[in-house]
């Protein structure tokens, strides 16, 4: 756990006090992980054996058709479900259950409706055992970082979808996770809001640099955000192709070059159902 940091007050900066920034990246090793759900006598293979590594500080997108098991894989890394075979290590330690080192951002936001935006962020900061003033200051800072200054006392029910997800991003990053799992976080948002959320996410991520696994079925989203894109087949899901994207950020789907365009059509072709 990091101790309280001494910082010059009144310095406007987006970067939070993070002396351990270089250390706060997680390495995720997924080895032959297979997940089978049993329901009575029925067995469903939710995830075919998968092996992949998430390098510290990288942004990986996982794209695939609905029901291919991409969310199941994410739930296993988060510690919500357990693999039937294989192992998952985060920084060399096997996943035994939910852990604050592994942050999760849900499509349904999962904000606590009985807390204000500020209260939701404070919930994540509680584990650091900060003094009351420091807790308040850091929570406000986190909300300001996601563009929510002035909205601190609003309840989730009073916020739009985009603003809710901003609160969720502020909340999750406040917990200083080394790995960040995002399960179609912008899937419920309109196209315009989604683009501004991409810009926001890139800004916050570049300040904190957690290792990100981002699940989506939006090809452009994957190409705009990720260093690497894994494409999964339909159920039971396997990883069928890997794309490395080295283009400088910030990127925009409106300004894709020939290489990005080619990757886009390749991915669309891979995702197309066989009968079309």
């Amino acid at each position, binding site marked *: 756990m990091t101790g309280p940091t001494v910082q010059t007050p009144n310095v406007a900066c987006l970067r939070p006090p993070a002396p351990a920034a270089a250390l706060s990246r997680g390495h995720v090793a997924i080895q032959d992980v297979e997940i089978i759900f049993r329901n009575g006598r029925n067995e469903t293979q939710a995830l075919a054996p998968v092996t992949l590594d998430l390098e510290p500080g990288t942004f990986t997108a996982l794209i695939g058709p609905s029901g291919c098991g991409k969310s199941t894989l994410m739930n296993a890394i*988060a*510690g*919500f479900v357990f693999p039937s075979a294989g192992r998952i290590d985060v920084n060399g330690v096997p996943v035994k*259950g*939910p*852990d*604050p080192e*592994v*942050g*999760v951002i*849900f499509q*349904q936001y*999962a904000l*606590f*409706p*009985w*807390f204000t935006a500020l209260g939701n962020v404070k*919930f*994540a900061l*509680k*584990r650091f055992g900060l003094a009351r003033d420091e807790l308040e200051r850091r929570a406000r800072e986190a909300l300001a970082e996601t563009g929510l200054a002035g909205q601190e006392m609003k*309840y*989730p*029910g*009073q916020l739009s979808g985009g603003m809710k997800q901003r609160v969720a991003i502020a*909340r*999750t990053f406040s*917990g200083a996770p080394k790995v960040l799992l995002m399960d179609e976080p912008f899937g419920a948002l309109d196209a315009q809001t989604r683009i501004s959320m991409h810009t926001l996410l890139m800004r916050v991520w570049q300040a904190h640099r957690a290792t990100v696994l981002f699940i989506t079925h939006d090809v452009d989203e994957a190409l705009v955000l990720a260093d690497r894109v894994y494409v999964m087949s339909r159920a039971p899901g396997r990883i069928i192709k890997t794309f490395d994207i080295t283009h400088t950020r910030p990127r925009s789907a409106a300004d894709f070059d020939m290489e990005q365009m080619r990757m886009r059509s390749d991915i669309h072709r891979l995702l197309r159902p066989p009968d079309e």
Partner: protein
Amino acid sequence: MALSGHNISEFVLTVFRPLVSFTIVLAIWSAAALSGVVSETLFPPPWTVWSAAVEMWNAGTLTPDIRISVERAVIGFAIGASLGVLLGVVTGRTQFFRTLLNPFLTLLRPIPAIALVPVAIVWFGIGEGSKYFVISYTVFLAVWFNTHHGMDFVPEIYIRASRSLGASRLREFLTVVVPAAAPHIVSGLRLGVALALLSLVAAELTGASSGIGYRLQEARQYIRTDRMFALLVLLGIIGALVDLAVHRISRALVHWEQA
């Protein structure tokens, strides 16, 4: 301050409509009494009921009756509600107690309060204890049932979010599980308040010497239907006022928008 169109329609809804309803009912009641079709002894007209209420007020029994009845309802409610919340939490959140207690509690649910009167008298005599027992039993079952359901259906995503954010099990319980179940618990408590008043009359069948329920029994012995009607109307008014207050309080407690 000028009334806007919205305020006027709200005024009509909250004051005018009930007023219309009461006026119509009173008119039908009076007409029935005046027509001579029904015996005045069995079905007294509104004005006789009113003078019966005034008579009881002048006799000095009305206020102490209301006080003792409300006191019984409040104490019975407090005992039943705390036990109900406590047990609901335990059966809603732990598999062991759920398996152990659920079938038993399900068996208790259809037993009406009045059926407990003989047991209450044998166990607690004709003192206040038997009244508290009958009321708290009724309240307990309703509050337990609702709390249990609320605890049982806490959305899994809140638990996942809480654990991923590093909350301890105690903090998760106090700041996630309880608020998530709060709407159910509060509606159980609201039902409990209504049931406390409903079971009051049954409770006062266990040999009371005061209270609204007792006064109803006494009126029966003298065939004073006018007094009975006055007491019934009084029960209705107390119940409606209490429910209004509880509704306000519960809205303040569960103030957030449900997901």
